[in-house]
């Protein structure tokens, strides 16, 4: 069964003046446990498509449904709550909260969902250990390297066992070693917890390890290959 699917989804910016078809009629479906990369040159619409999947933007036409529920119909707060309970995010610039320690950054998202304190503690430590960053649990983001920060960000995205994780160019700011390390850990979690990962990237290292490659150009799907 598909976790998320888009049906004829389009996103048009400036429809009244100079229309830009950032995403143009894409129909795709993602299964549970996928480890997929959406690739293409910059400006091809992959970030917009990812934002549509994550409910950060609403489609101009078409629909986005998660486990059969059409999320394009949800309003602001409903959408925020939906994201909280169903989607994990990893950003290019890590975007951890600077005043929180690594532990708190991960725990925070679970506390928003009001998990019991004990569950939070166990889960956060489990994830930090899995991401090999447990020894830095009580350091603030500015005391961590880029790779370490991004591992915390992945732990944060995984924390409440979301239906899928959207990662927008997660390796763009990392060197090779950190990139490979991060991909290893994500693949491990993908297998261990059957978490669905969807990336947007133009990084060869990510593409080579993705299980499915979706090539976009001009807002359209050029190719969709599963290895």
């Amino acid at each position, binding site marked *: 069964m598909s976790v998320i699917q888009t049906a004829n989804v389009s996103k048009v910016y400036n429809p009244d003046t100079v229309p830009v078809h950032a995403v143009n009629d894409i129909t795709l479906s993602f299964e549970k446990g996928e480890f997929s990369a959406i690739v293409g040159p910059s400006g091809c619409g992959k*970030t917009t498509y990812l934002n549509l999947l994550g409910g950060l933007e609403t489609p101009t036409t078409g629909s986005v449904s998660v486990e059969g529920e059409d999320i394009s119909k949800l309003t602001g707060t409903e959408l925020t709550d939906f994201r909280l309970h169903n989607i994990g995010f990893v950003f290019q610039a890590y975007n951890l909260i600077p005043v929180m320690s690594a532990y708190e950054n991960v725990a925070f998202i679970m506390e928003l969902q009001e998990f019991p304190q004990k569950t939070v503690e166990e889960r956060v430590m489990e994830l930090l250990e899995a991401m090999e960053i447990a020894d830095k649990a009580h350091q603030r983001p500015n005391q961590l390297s880029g790779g370490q920060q991004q591992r915390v960000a992945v732990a944060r*995205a995984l924390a409440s066992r979301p239906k899928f994780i959207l990662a927008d160019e997660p390796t763009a700011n990392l060197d090779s070693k950190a990139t490979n390390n991060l991909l290893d850990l994500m693949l491990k979690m993908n297998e261990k917890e059957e978490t669905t990962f969807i990336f947007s990237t133009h990084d060869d290292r990510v593409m080579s390890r993705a299980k499915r490659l979706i090539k976009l150009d001009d807002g359209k799907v050029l190719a969709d290959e599963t290895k």
Partner: protein
Amino acid sequence: MKRKIILAWRNLWRNKKRTYITLASVTFAVVIATMMRGLQLGTYDKMLDDAITSTTGHVALMDKLYWDDKTLLNSMEFPPNLEEVLRADPNLDFWVPQLFSGALVSSGQHTRGVLVQGVDPQVQDRQINLSEKIIEGSYLSDEDEAVLIGKELSLFLRIGVGDTIVLLGQGYMGVTAAAKYPIKGIYDHPMAEFNKRLVFLPLATAQYLFFMEGRLTNVNLVLKDNEEVSNTQTYYQSKMDTTLLEARGWRTMNKEILSGIESDNFFGKIMIGILYMVIGFGLFGTILMMTMERKKEFSIMIAIGMRRTKLLTQVILESIMIAGIGALAGLIISFPAVYFYYLNPIPVPEESADMYRQMNMEPILQISIKPGYMVLQFAVVLCVSIVASVIPLNNIMKFNIVDIIRGRQ
């Protein structure tokens, strides 16, 4: 909640210098406001206290017509059962029977209009401590057929202790009242009116002078506790013949002072209002910067599923915290000063002391130590901080997270 408070605290110190300056502004405002309000409210309390203890009492028993028309015709007969009731009243500190009337006092060629006050010397002394203010001669005792006059009156009449004055006035039922009395003592009271226009003599002597045997103009009750005024009023109304007599509270007897206080207080509040408004704009600036520079962070939080309303409470918490700490520091700084000046009131400089005496006020600046107004400063500052957060919060509700995350804004 605990997490939120810790977070707010950490966010506050992300820009230390800015936070310190903002705190300093709030602290400054609270110190100024506390001192200003303290002096104002203290002066009001002192004015009322002086008026209550030295003239009207908390409650006064009198003929129903007396207050609006203060003539001996509207004096009261002291009800026979009243003394027992007064003695038995546990709320009462003491009670002062009085006989008031205007009269002319003259000595040789010099004549002046005065207020003659017939008093029970012992009790009266508890009210205004006159015996300690005697500068020449001695204080009155019950049977004396003699008077006490103020320093300025004695200078005007050019008389001293042992000299004789003539009192001339209108007695009960319009009879002419006139008699000669020796001066037993001269006092120096801080209030000008006392020194110029009051003549004291023992109650019995005054009753005899004004043909008022067994009659009084009023009985002032000084209570142990200010809060008991209305209970006391009701209690005495029930014990007296209310067709003739009434128990009047201090508020209606000091209407002019209260009204003066009200007008002064109004302008005082406006001034503090301006000060807080200016500080409010400063807070607004700080909170605005605090939210603007964290736009990206807020957007990420919204993206990963934090409701905007939760962000709002976080920001409000931060502004309340900054205002609260500033206000608290202000109170901590001003309290010792307030306490010190409460114990050691500042004397008014001699050049303006006369102005105080002219208005029958003791020339000192009394500061209030009531916690109420200090707590109020705190509360006002918190409210100001909330108002100052409105526009920045509104910003949070509106901004486009996708644009901000992508760096388009």
